[in-house]
């Protein structure tokens, strides 16, 4: 493991343990009250969901261009994280919406495009798991569609009619709400780095095992 891994993992664990206290100290939002505090885990999850889609897409492009299996391993690890953080986003959002909007789900541009992106992530993992030999390149092409959806998800709330909060909410947050949010964003970014590295490590070791089996067969 690289030198940065252990300190970052410890820091991430400590920040994750502290985050409920930081969130509890945040001010209540005037119209939504207590339920608005779901936002402090929902939004960082959503950002990591989008970052994972971009990492998966970029690594897939590099794999398609160079054929280097290291990029393929990174893409697979990021694809798995896309599905995990996408699930967190798509569950915490409706729990907040039930109170704020009066319904768990509406089919607007933001929610629908996020669901489509998550389903592309699931399709990527299913293809990798059951696609057989050569499915890596097909899955890499699928990951490009997942990445292409990211800007659409981000700007959807600004261009289409929706009741989902706009992207302008974040820069306008007062310090008492902004600090907990950025604390959680940093925590989730560190968590993403740690999990990505661990997951890539699993694939690296698996590749070594496969190589050893091949060398044994050749004897």
């Amino acid at each position, binding site marked *: 493991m690289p030198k940065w891994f252990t300190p970052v993992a410890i820091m991430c664990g400590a920040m994750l343990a502290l985050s409920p206290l930081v969130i509890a100290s945040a001010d209540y939002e005037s119209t939504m009250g207590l339920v608005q505090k779901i936002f402090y885990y*929902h939004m960082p999850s959503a950002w990591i969901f989008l970052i994972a889609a971009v990492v998966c897409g970029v690594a897939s492009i590099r794999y398609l261009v160079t054929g280097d299996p290291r990029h393929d391993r990174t893409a697979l690890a990021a694809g798995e994280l896309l599905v995990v953080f996408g699930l967190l986003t798509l569950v915490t959002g409706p729990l907040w919406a039930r109170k704020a909007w009066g319904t768990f789900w509406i089919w607007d541009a933001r929610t629908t495009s996020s669901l489509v992106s998550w389903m592309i992530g699931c399709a990527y993992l299913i293809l990798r798991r059951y696609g057989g030999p050569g499915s890596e390149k097909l899955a890499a092409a699928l990951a490009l569609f997942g990445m292409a959806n990211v800007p659409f998800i981000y700007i959807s709330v600004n261009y289409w009619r929706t009741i989902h909060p706009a992207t302008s909410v974040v820069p306008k947050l007062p310090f008492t709400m902004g600090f907990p949010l950025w604390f959680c964003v940093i925590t989730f970014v560190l968590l993403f780095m740690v999990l990505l590295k661990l997951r890539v490590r699993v694939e690296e070791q698996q590749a070594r095992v496969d190589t050893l089996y091949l060398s044994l067969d050749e004897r």
Partner: protein
Amino acid sequence: MKTMKRWCAVLSVWMVWGMMVAAQQPTRQDEFVPIDQLPPQEQLAAAPLLIGAYAFVLVVLFLYVYSVARRLTNVQRELERLDTSIKQGGRA
């Protein structure tokens, strides 16, 4: 192949459920009722939703970390076993 069929069945059920949810229309409102006049069972509390959301995030993250750690341990154990076999000159 069996697993693939199972996945297809799960996805089909999920898509049918999604279409049913999409087809649902909210009922028209005939009168406005102040929230404090609602019966207690219809007043939606925020705390269960908030606790549910945080519990879900922490449980999913814990399960994922556990799953990755278990996979890493298994693959490292297999690697050590193969290394030992190769050093002994035999087949694993």
